[in-house]
């Protein structure tokens, strides 16, 4: 608000500004340049002066009725008539605006404050006595200082500038068209314009590793950190077996040899790299949140995916990403720096993980066909979903039956304030129980806890 107040004074500008114009004229219709476009124009009558004539007649009629004694009533009627006449002079205002929107930082980090400055210049021939501007803030972004709305009057050639601050959130956010209302001086006719000023705010959160999730034995043939049940080279003791010719000398159990005289070979649990697919639920249901102020399931899933991806990659596992969404998103498992950057970009900006729910319908069979063949046979799957409907648990069971090792990380977005919401929470608990009974590991991530804590808790239970 302070900043807006400081800069709200119109300042004259030079005419040689090469920026684009959004010109609208009643005769010319919509004339738009390359970037800035006027997407719609509506004129409407506000009918606000309708009653003033009646008021004039009230006073005038009384004046006539009472005879010549009170000319002042007739004069009061004249006032009403004057305003009625004034309202009838209204013509649709000629609007020719030059509109700009600039961001303090187009690619901020999450939770950064981004200053948005809107500049509107009157390029038309006349005074715009009543100009109201409502900027189209992206829906998933919140304004934290100032307001994206401004009302002013603009002389020709002058411009008004106001600013407000938004908090950056993960994802690609397109600004919506700016709505501008222009009224004639009497306020009888209002022209509404939607001016599209393409502006994009892209926020890519960094990948920051958390505690790694302890993975189970299904691994690839590459060396890594997941201990398997196969004996071989490694750290953790696995078994002692009879010596076979060619076993390395350092693995001979010399104690046993001293005790019994027989040669035996120590075996350790082999450590291999796992191939992990992070399967993120991004259907419309994933945009549910406990309350409008809380983060939705998708945001929290992405947060978890971010952390898990980095942790697994750091451990040497191969990690891929797939979305449960009508929009395709598939990053095959891989490793390395470039893969890491790719994943970071995907998680932040992929259309499937847009801050806005997908518009297309989700067809489960189509999705299964598309994704089913892609997931490598010996890969583990970590499913990130709120488990608020039946589809994901069933899909998890199916993947489990296909031989994948499935772990579910489920952000809890249920609330308990109404009976209906409590029912949803109970249903979700039942689904978790059902999954656990069938041998699937489920991390129930409470919104109060950090992801690291939730993972550690789950881990403790699994090891015992």
């Amino acid at each position, binding site marked *: 608000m302070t900043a807006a107040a400081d800069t709200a004074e119109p300042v004259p500008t030079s005419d040689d500004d090469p920026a684009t114009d959004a010109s609208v004229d009643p005769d010319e219709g919509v004339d738009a340049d390359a970037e800035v476009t006027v997407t719609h124009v509506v004129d409407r009558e506000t009918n606000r002066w309708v009653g003033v004539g009646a008021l004039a007649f009230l006073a005038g009629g009384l004046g006539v009725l009472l005879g010549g004694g009170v000319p002042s009533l007739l004069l009061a009627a004249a006032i009403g008539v*004057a305003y009625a006449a*004034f309202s009838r002079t209204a013509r649709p205002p000629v609007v020719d605006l030059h509109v700009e929107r600039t961001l303090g930082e187009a690619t901020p980090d999450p939770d950064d404050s981004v200053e948005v400055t809107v500049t509107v210049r009157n390029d038309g021939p006349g005074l715009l*006595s009543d100009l109201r501007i409502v900027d189209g803030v992206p829906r998933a972004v919140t304004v934290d200082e100032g*307001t994206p709305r*401004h009302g002013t*009057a603009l002389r020709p050639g002058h411009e008004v500038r106001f600013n407000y601050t938004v908090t950056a959130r993960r994802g690609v956010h397109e600004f919506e068209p700016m709505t501008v209302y222009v009224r004639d001086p009497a306020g009888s006719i209002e022209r509404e314009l939607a001016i599209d000023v393409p502006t994009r705010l892209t926020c890519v959160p960094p990948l920051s590793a958390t505690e790694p999730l302890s993975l189970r034995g299904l691994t690839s043939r590459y060396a890594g950190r997941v201990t398997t049940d196969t004996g071989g080279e490694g750290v953790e003791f696995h078994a002692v077996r009879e010596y076979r010719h060619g076993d390395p000398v350092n693995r001979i159990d010399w104690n046993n040899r001293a005790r019994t005289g027989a040669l035996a070979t120590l075996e350790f649990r082999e450590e291999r790299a796992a191939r992990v697919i992070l399967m993120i639920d991004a259907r419309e249901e994933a945009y549910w949140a406990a309350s409008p102020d809380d983060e939705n399931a998708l945001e929290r899933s992405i947060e978890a995916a971010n952390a898990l991806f980095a942790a697994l990659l750091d451990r040497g596992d191969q990690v891929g990403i797939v979305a449960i969404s009508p929009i395709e998103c598939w990053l095959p498992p891989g490793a390395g720096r470039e893969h890491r950057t790719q994943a970071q970009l995907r998680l932040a900006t992929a259309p499937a993980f847009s801050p806005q729910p997908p518009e297309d319908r989700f067809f489960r069979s189509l999705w299964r066909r598309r994704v089913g063949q892609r997931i490598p046979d010996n890969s583990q799957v970590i499913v990130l979903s709120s488990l608020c409907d039946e589809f994901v648990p069933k899909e998890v069971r199916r993947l489990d039956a296909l031989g994948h090792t499935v772990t579910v990380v489920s952000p809890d977005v249920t609330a308990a304030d109404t009976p209906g919401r409590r029912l949803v929470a109970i249903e979700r608990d039942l689904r978790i129980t059902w999954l656990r009974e069938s041998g699937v590991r489920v991390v129930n991530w409470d919104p109060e806890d950090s992801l690291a804590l939730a993972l550690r808790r789950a881990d403790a239970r699994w090891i015992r």
Partner: protein
Amino acid sequence: MSDLPSFGPNRVGALASLGVALLALGAGAPYSGTGTLVGATGLALFAIGALGGRRGSATLGAVVLFSGVVIAGWEGAPVGAVLVGATAAVVAWDLAEHAIGLGEQLGREADATRNVIVHGAVSLAVGTIAISASYGVYSVVGGGLPLSTLILLLLAAITLTAALRP
């Protein structure tokens, strides 16, 4: 998740409208007790409407306020006072309605002071012209010409207004 404006009329506009409404009440007050009473009722209604963002209440209040001025005129308030009172009632209503409209489109917090000032200035200018014109006509005509002259003049003005429609 986009922010929602806090609803309510624009503060500057609502306060300005209240000031003008007070003027409307004050103009006729010294000349008529009944008029003042009616006007005060109107002012209360008007204040509720203007500050609370209720159009109906503001409009009704302004009409009652105007009626108070008319009653004062009937009970013998001078022409100048009635003209100022009637104009102030109309301007007050205009400002209040404008502030409520601004509140609906921009929210309570948005800075629209310039918008309100310009709108108020235009409205006042129209009022001033109307007062000067009608007072001018009155002082020329009022000398001794019959009342019918004034009525006919008023009718002529109304017809002209109707013809102004684009």
